[in-house]
């Protein structure tokens, strides 16, 4: 109970976004929304401005909601562990995404919005290592983002069993893509932080999330998706340890 009150207090005091973060999120949301709605501006060579703007607005809402879920999961976890997270956009990734959208006529989404930096709050790390930022903690914070995105996709997958809607389908597709892109071990994406935090955890989470994404795309049931992805992640984690990591640690 005491921990919950502590987390609530930290959220109340430190959750707010800075002006710079809001600017970065707004730019990223607009760019990514444009990328995912690229093909929704009419049929063939005919441009339908009204339909295009409506679809762009829908995409803005989808991306904004997904970003808030992704970043909030990381931010809350970081506050729980005594760090303050600051999200920043990645100019290279956004511009590359736009170029790819134009080159492929919007058929391929490249979603590389940004990453985060953490600020150490020594007073909130009493009882833990509190003499600086450590990679393991950052890796866990990073993991929360893709995990939240894939859980969000699963929630909407469950909803799609009741209501079938193109908006819901797009939310699922976007969140799956966002989770997968976030796992890439390219700085400053979440995957790079996870990779440096712990290779073993990285392997487990990457294969778990990839298999969850594949099963969501194959319309598997929610229960099977969750159990199978954990199982596949565990098996590949074990194989990775036996065939690669074990040799790195002990030679041979």
């Amino acid at each position, binding site marked *: 109970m005491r921990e919950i009150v502590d987390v609530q207090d930290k959220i109340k005091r430190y959750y707010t976004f800075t002006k710079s973060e809001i*600017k970065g999120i707004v730019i990223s949301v607009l760019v990514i929304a444009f990328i995912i709605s690229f093909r929704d501006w009419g049929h063939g060579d005919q441009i339908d401005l009204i339909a295009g703007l409506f679809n762009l607005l829908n995409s803005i809402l989808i991306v904004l909601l997904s970003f808030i879920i992704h970043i909030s999961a990381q931010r809350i976890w970081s506050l729980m562990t005594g760090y303050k997270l600051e999200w*920043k*956009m990645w100019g*290279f990734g956004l*511009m590359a995404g*736009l170029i790819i959208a*134009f080159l492929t006529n919007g058929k391929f989404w490249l979603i590389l919005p940004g990453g985060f930096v953490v600020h150490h709050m020594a007073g909130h790390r009493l009882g833990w290592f509190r003499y600086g930022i450590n990679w393991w903690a950052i890796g866990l914070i990073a993991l929360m983002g893709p995990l939240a995105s894939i859980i969000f996709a699963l929630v909407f997958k469950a909803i799609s069993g009741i209501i079938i809607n193109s908006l819901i389908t797009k939310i699922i597709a976007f969140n799956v893509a966002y989770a997968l892109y976030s796992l890439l071990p390219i*700085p*400053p994406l979440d995957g790079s932080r996870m990779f440096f935090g712990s290779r073993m955890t990285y392997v487990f989470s990457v294969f778990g999330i990839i298999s969850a994404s594949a099963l969501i795309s194959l319309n598997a049931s929610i229960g099977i998706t969750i159990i199978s992805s954990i199982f596949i992640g565990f098996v590949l984690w074990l194989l990775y340890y036996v065939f690669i990591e074990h040799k790195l640690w002990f030679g041979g």
Partner: protein
Amino acid sequence: MVRRIRMASFFFRSWAEFSFFVIMVFGFTVSIWASSHSAAISYIVIFLSGMIAGRLLYDRKQKLTIPYYIIISGFLIGFLFGTYYGSKKVIIVLFVLGTLFSYHLYNKGYLKDLPY
């Protein structure tokens, strides 16, 4: 082993020239791809590429920049080789404008991001 060390030494000394050729081929490929759509797409792509170049040059502000100018010019040369729709002069102008625009946005602090 000696051969590997020689190769590594060659790469270490000539990484800018090596990157120049790799990026030139990349620029050529991107240009062919963009031109297969229309001249307008080529113009948009080169402007956005210029913005990436501006971000890169801003990142190298107060640091060694000459190799980066060589690499960036490699991309532009490759892109010009691959362009068959659209004016080459417009492409150069848009690339320079994109670079200056992006550099200015970052330099004045209108945009802030994580380089890595």
